[in-house]
Structures are given as structure tokens and as C-alpha cells.
């Protein structure tokens, strides 16, 4: 059982680390208010608390140091400065590592650990040191020394206990009767009420406590066991315990008790309260509680905070179960379409009622689908927060100063997309620090702030998710990029390329601008890997750059991997689907719109512009290009902004389709992204316009011609 609790602990740690990161990021951004500091403190504190329960000593030890520093900050004894904030950030990274190590095994960098501990130590006043934290395994041992002492002594002794509660005790919910009941479990107990102090009836002060008890306990337990029972009423009563046991025993027990309660004199300044808490009467408005301060902050900030920190009950579900549900709902929708079609084909007179019911069924199925899909959607926040660390590490490795600013963290994206986006984003960010952001002195010379800024933004954009990585660095060094591409034989020496085309060379396999492979963005992995990862998610990536001002990578991703909006078309008697996201417009063509170019090239004239025609059937090898000219065109735009007209036989309709991967069914088919099942139960290919155009001789040829004409023009 403790295993599963431990699992929850690690799951919770993820949330806590996230909260900690979020707070630290806010602090780094100059937000030092109490509630932010408290939130971080709480997160670290909870990690420590949980870790203690599972005996994760290293984690507990480090969290304790971290927490202590935060406690100093919280109480105002310590102020934030940039060195401290950097230390806290590095410490948070290390804490995350320690959690990961505790969960997955392995080891952390001990030297780094010690360096951080030492650095944190410098911020901790020495007297705070005595509050050592004793980790304890679940269910192991006795608690902190105040539970019945495990000293087994056979000798029965008689204790005389005099117990006189002060009036304060009655305000704390302590009930003498329960204490006596607990005592009676230690041995034979005699209770005698002593009301000698009770004044005459008219002199009674109802708030005062006049009653005391004389107790006689015959027990084999040590004195500390008895004192432990009175632990909660220490200071709220007059208590004397005397016994016939030897003096030494008492001294030892007292010492143990003092150590446990911190009530003894010798505990001294180490245990001095850090703030006066003497107020005996609870007075909510006088308490410096976090709640009061939150109310004091601006209403807007308060809403934002309660939104962030408010309890959000969640349910953790095995992803496989969700996916099974998604598949089942997909089948349900297909099933509906098939049913609808069969009813439509029925020769059964009036079926309008059935059709109405069926429409309701369809709407319900869509609702379920939407709901199930949303289960997989998660905010990009944790992903973005991890990226802050990447930028920090990359900055310190390159000796540059770069800051990550994130926006749109609440944007929700399919879980798998988030997972698979981690590597590409890491790579782009490292690249941005390594190649984009200039050295501080160069930035200064260019009149920029010495610290570079990388802006990571997520947003929803017409049915897609847009992730943007924008740096304020030097921008793509186009002459150099082109030079390298020529040297590496990626483009011919006389190639005439537009700026956008040069920028996109970065995505070509085997391209890397670093003179030597730096161990940061290097290892032989180029931006082509990033591009593959993005296209593998059904997304697109684009780069735009302004020399001296920086570069922007834009990643457009589908909202979910399971469904997409598609245009259902007919190609060579086959029904196929073209992703809506890539279609600019659709049109029916007439003969006078078609112009020949060269031997077999054709161009479509649209409002005076010529766009190469790409025959889909031909590109897919289903029919020769010139069999019969298809009459419908889908105008699509590629990454480089090049437009093409995809020629298809007919357009049926636009609908949401459930994506079925062809992985494992067949290998990679040029021009085909995936498959889907249509309403009639038939499978339809989902096309990848980009690769269809690449496979089309006309479009490719036109591209070359355009370049040549560009060359002549310039």
C-alpha cells in the first residue's frame, strides 16, 4: 500500500515542482510579494514532508536547506538579490533532479549537490541550524520521542501526579477525561478530584479554572510515557509527577522530553520564536495570515492567484484507457455515418423520425468525442517551465545571458503532442542561445540590452496550436548559411534563393552552422531533426528572421492527434482526405484557366497569378497526368510560401475524420500522411500536400523556373 502512496507522492511532486518553478519564475521577474514566496515555500515544504514519510533522506536534507532559506525570505530576514535568485533557480533544478533520482533510481551529481548546499547554507543564520529534521520511514520506529517511550521496564512504580489545568487549557479542546483514559492504559489509575480551591458559589469566575486532580498511577512504564500523555497540555496546566523511581531515570526522561518539546531552558535561543506569537486570544484580524494579505492585493491579482492555487480536484487515469475511449468514440461516429447511409438507402417510405433521432445520436456522439478528446488536452505550462531550465543551462554553458519569457501557458494541447514537443523545443531553444543570442559585449555594441530575451508563446489559431519561439538575437546569418549549404553540396553554387528559402536551409538534413559541433546544440543533430519531429506530429515549422533583430520559429500543430478536419475529395476513383489546414481555397477550373508550360507542365491562372498545377493522381502514381484533366483545384500553400493547385476529380464535403496511423500497416508512402475510415466503412487516405507537391514534376519544375526568372530579374 505504501508503494501506491509513494507513487502519489511522486505524482504530487510533479505538481509541486511545477508550482515551485512558477513561483520562482515570478520571483525572477521581480514579483517578490508574500503570496508568491509563500507558494514556493509551501511547495518545497510539501516535498520535504512527503519525502520524510518515505525516508528519502537526501531529498529531505536538500529540501530542508532550500526551505529554510525561503523561510528567511518569508519572514523578511533575508532579501532577494539576483545572486540569490540564481541560486534558488539552480536549487530548484537540483531539487527536481533529486525527486527524479528518488523515483527512478540512479544518482545525482554529488559535487553539485554539495556546492549548492554550501551556497544555501550561507544564507541560513547559524542558530537556525539546530532544527534538524529527522526523516522517518513509514510506520517505522516511534514518533519524534513523544510517543510512549519504548523503554520496557519490568519494575512497577507508583507515580503521584498532580494535575491542575489552567483556564487556558479549556480553550484548546483538551479534555482531562481523555488524558486520564490514556493514562489508565499505562497501568492502574486512581483519580481524585480536588475541589478545595473552588470558591464559594458567588465568587466563581466562570472563566477561571479551580479544579485539580490528584492521580495515582501504578505502572511499569517510564516517566517519559506519562509526560508524553500530558504533552499537549504542557504550559496549560500545573503538572507535577513524582515517583518512587531513582533520580537518574527522571533526569534522563526530562532531558528527552525537553529535547522533544523544546520546553526546557537549555533549548535556549536556538528555539526562540522568530516572531512574537504571544497573543493569547485568537484575533483573526490581528493575525498576519496569508489570507488577509491576499485580500489586500489587487482584485485582479487575487483572481489570477486563486485560479492558479485554488484546489483543482483531478483524476489521474491511465492514458491507455482514455485512448481506448477515443477509439471507441471514433468507431461510434463512423458507425453512425454508416447507419445514416443505410437508412438513407432504405426503401422504407417516411424515415424522417428515424433521421431526427439519428441526428440526436450524432450530436451526442460528437459531444462525447469532444469530451474525451479534452481529457487528453493539457496545458503547455509544465513543458514551458521545463524550458526555462534549458535556457538557464544553455546560457551558463555559453557564457551568454538569456532570459526565457513565456506566454499562453494555459493553452491546451494533446498530451502526446506536449510529450513529443519537448525535444524539438529543447533543441530550438538551445540553438537560440547558442547561435541566436549574441555575447553580452556584442549585444551592448549593437545597442541592445546585455541580456537576450527568448519569448516562448503558445496560442490557439483557427483549429491549430501555434508555438512560437522568438529571440532578439542576431538573426540568421544568411550569407554564411548559404555558404555552408553550398560547401556541403546541399544547393548548387549558383542557386538563387529568397531570404525565406535561405532561412529554411537550416531545416535541411546535414546542416549545422556551428563551426565545430558544440556539445550544446550539436551532437550532429540538426534542425532537420526538429522539423521531422514536428511533421511527425502532423505539424509544420517555419522560420522567419530579421538580421540584427532576431529569429522566430513558428510551429503549427494540430489540436489533437486523433481527429482532424479534412476535405473529402475524389482522386482516380478513390476517396481521399486533404487536411483543411493546408487549403487556402478551392475552385472549379475551366479550360481557359489552364496554361501549358514546357513539355508537361501546366499552370493555373488565378486572378492573374500563375500557380503550378499538381495532379494528385499522377503524384500518387494512380494515373498518368494527362489522362483526363481533373476539374477541381485545391489551392495550397507550402512552408516556403509557395502556392500550388492540387488537381482532384471532385470535392465531396468537409468533415472531421478520425486519424488512423498507417504505421505498422505499411511503410512510409510519399504523399500519404495517414488513413481514416469514412462513413461507408471504407478507408480513405489522408494526403500530405507538401510531399505531393514535392513529388510533382510540374511544381518542382515551376519552382526552378521561378528562381531562374528571379535570377534574371535581379
Amino acid at each position, binding site marked *: 500500500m505504501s508503494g501506491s502512496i509513494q507513487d502519489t507522492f511522486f505524482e504530487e511532486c510533479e505538481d509541486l515542482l511545477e508550482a515551485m518553478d512558477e513561483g520562482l519564475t515570478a520571483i525572477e521577474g521581480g514579483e517578490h510579494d508574500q503570496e508568491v514566496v509563500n507558494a514556493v515555500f*509551501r511547495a518545497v515544504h*510539501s516535498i520535504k514532508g512527503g519525502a520524510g*514519510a518515505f525516508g528519502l533522506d537526501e531529498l529531505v536534507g536538500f529540501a530542508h536547506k532550500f526551505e529554510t532559506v525561503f523561510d528567511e525570505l518569508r519572514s523578511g530576514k533575508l532579501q532577494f538579490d539576483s545572486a540569490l535568485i540564481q541560486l534558488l533557480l539552480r536549487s530548484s533544478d537540483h531539487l527536481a533532479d533529486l525527486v527524479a533520482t528518488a523515483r527512478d533510481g540512479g544518482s545525482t551529481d554529488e559535487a553539485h549537490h554539495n556546492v549548492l548546499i554550501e551556497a544555501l547554507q550561507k544564507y541560513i543564520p547559524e542558530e537556525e541550524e539546530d532544527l534538524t529534521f529527522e526523516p522517518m520511514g513509514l510506520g517505522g520506529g516511534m514518533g519524534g520521542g513523544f510517543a510512549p517511550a519504548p523503554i520496557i521496564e519490568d519494575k512497577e512504580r507508583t507515580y503521584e501526579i498532580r494535575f491542575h489545568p489552567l483556564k487556558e487549557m479549556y480553550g484548546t*479542546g483538551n479534555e482531562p477525561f481523555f488524558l486520564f483514559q490514556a493514562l489508565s492504559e499505562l497501568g492502574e489509575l486512581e483519580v481524585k478530584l480536588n475541589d478545595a480551591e473552588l470558591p464559594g458559589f458567588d465568587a466563581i469566575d466562570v472563566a477561571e479554572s479551580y479544579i485539580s486532580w490528584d492521580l495515582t498511577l501504578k505502572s511499569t512504564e517510564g516517566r517519559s510515557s506519562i509526560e508524553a500523555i500530558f504533552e499537549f497540555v504542557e504550559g496549560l496546566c500545573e503538572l507535577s509527577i513524582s515517583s518512587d523511581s531513582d533520580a537518574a531515570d527522571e533526569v534522563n526522561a526530562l532531558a528527552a522530553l525537553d529535547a522533544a518539546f523544546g520546553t526546557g531552558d537549555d533549548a535556549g535561543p536556538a528555539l526562540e520564536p522568530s516572531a512574537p506569537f504571544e*497573543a*493569547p486570544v485568537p484575533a483573526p484580524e490581528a493575525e498576519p495570515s496569508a489570507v488577509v494579505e491576499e485580500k489586500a492585493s489587487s482584485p485582479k491579482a487575487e483572481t489570477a492567484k486563486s485560479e492558479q*492555487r485554488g484546489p483543482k*480536484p483531478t483524476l489521474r487515469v491511465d492514458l491507455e484507457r482514455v485512448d481506448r475511449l477515443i477509439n471507441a468514440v471514433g468507431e461510434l461516429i463512423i458507425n453512425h455515418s454508416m447507419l445514416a447511409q443505410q437508412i438513407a438507402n432504405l426503401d422504407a417510405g417516411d424515415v424522417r423520425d428515424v433521421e431526427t433521432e439519428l441526428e440526436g445520436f450524432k450530436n451526442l456522439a460528437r459531444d462525447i468525442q469532444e469530451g474525451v478528446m479534452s481529457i487528453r488536452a493539457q496545458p503547455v505550462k509544465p513543458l514551458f517551465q521545463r524550458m526555462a531550465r534549458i535556457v538557464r543551462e544553455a546560457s551558463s554553458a555559453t557564457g551568454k545571458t538569456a532570459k526565457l519569457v513565456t506566454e499562453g501557458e494555459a493553452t491546451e494541447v494533446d498530451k502526446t503532442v506536449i510529450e513529443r514537443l519537448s525535444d524539438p523545443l529543447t533543441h530550438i531553444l538551445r540553438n537560440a542561445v547558442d547561435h541566436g543570442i549574441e555575447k553580452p559585449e556584442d549585444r551592448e555594441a549593437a545597442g541592445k540590452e546585455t541580456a537576450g530575451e527568448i519569448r516562448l508563446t503558445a496560442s490557439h489559431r483557427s483549429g491549430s496550436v501555434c508555438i512560437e519561439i522568438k529571440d532578439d538575437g542576431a538573426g540568421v546569418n544568411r550569407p554564411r548559411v548559404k555558404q555552408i549549404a553550398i560547401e556541403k553540396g546541399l544547393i548548387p553554387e549558383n542557386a538563387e534563393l529568397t531570404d525565406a528559402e535561405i532561412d529554411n536551409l537550416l531545416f535541411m538534413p546535414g546542416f549545422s552552422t556551428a563551426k565545430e559541433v558544440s556539445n550544446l546544440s550539436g551532437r550532429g543533430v540538426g534542425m532537420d531533426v526538429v522539423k521531422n519531429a514536428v511533421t511527425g506530429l502532423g505539424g509544420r515549422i517555419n522560420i522567419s528572421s530579421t538580421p540584427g533583430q532576431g529569429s522566430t520559429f513558428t510551429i503549427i500543430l494540430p489540436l489533437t492527434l486523433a481527429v482532424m478536419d479534412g476535405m473529402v475529395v475524389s482522386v482516380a476513383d478513390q476517396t481521399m482526405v486533404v487536411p483543411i489546414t493546408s487549403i487556402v481555397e478551392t475552385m472549379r477550373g475551366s479550360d481557359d484557366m489552364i496554361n501549358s508550360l514546357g513539355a508537361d507542365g501546366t499552370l493555373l491562372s488565378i486572378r492573374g497569378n500563375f500557380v503550378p498545377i499538381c495532379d494528385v493522381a499522377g503524384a500518387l502514381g494512380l494515373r498518368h497526368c494527362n489522362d483526363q484533366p481533373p476539374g477541381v483545384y485545391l489551392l495550397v500553400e507550402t512552408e516556403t510560401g509557395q502556392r500550388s493547385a492540387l488537381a482532384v476529380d471532385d470535392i465531396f464535403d468537409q468533415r472531421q475524420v478520425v486519424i488512423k496511423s498507417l504505421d505498422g500497416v505499411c511503410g512510409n508512402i510519399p504523399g500519404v500522411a495517414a488513413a481514416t475510415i469514412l462513413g461507408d466503412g471504407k478507408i480513405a487516405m489522408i494526403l500530405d500536400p507538401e510531399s505531393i507537391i514535392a513529388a510533382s514534376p510540374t511544381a518542382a519544375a515551376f519552382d526552378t523556373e521561378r528562381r531562374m526568372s528571379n535570377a534574371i530579374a535581379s
Partner: protein
Amino acid sequence: MKTKVLAIDDSRTIRNLLAAALEEAGFEYHSAVDGREGVDMYPSVAPDVVITDINMPNLDGFGVIEELRGTGINSKVPILVLTTESAPELKARARSAGATGWITKPFDDQSLIFALKRVTGAAA
């Protein structure tokens, strides 16, 4: 009748640990994820004892004690605070607010039950 415990803690781990220990020992376990929810739940649960964390969002442990003690009918319910370490200033402050006692984190089952016994008289 089972002794009813209302545990208020923002840490899922701690709640799970408490639930496991208390249910094992035969207590009836209820939980709230922060002070505000705990105070709101209090009337409907009507627990025999409250265990509350101190550091929590929305309403902290001190706030819980004050609110429960502040309303006359609850002035007697035992309230145990969960503290890390034997932090004496937190204990002192909790007690002056009206806490009955405390449980030191990390707790083991025995010390937890022992603490409950001293404030409710119940072994379970």
C-alpha cells in the same frame, strides 16, 4: 460508532498517508484539500477530531483553528495541527489560537493514533 476524523492538508501524499493509517486503525476518515474547504466541510462531516496542516493555500491552519474556535458550537472539538519538525513557535502559535495538540511530520501510525487517543479518548 467510529470516531470521525476530518483531515485538512493540501498535500495529497500526506492525505493518503493519513487515510491509510486512520482507516487501518478503524477511524472514519474525511479530508479537505485546504483550510477553506475544511471549514466549509466541517458542519456536514461533524468530526470528532480535526487534523489540520498549517501551511495551506486559501486558509492556513491557524485560520482553520480560529474559525472553528470562533463559532461557539465548535469550541470544544479537538484540533491537532500537523507540523514539520518540533517547531516550538508554530506549536505555541497554534496553541494560542486554540489547537489541542500537534502531530509531527513525518508521523508514524503509532504516534498518530497516540495523539488522537489523547484528545478523543478513542483508540479508534
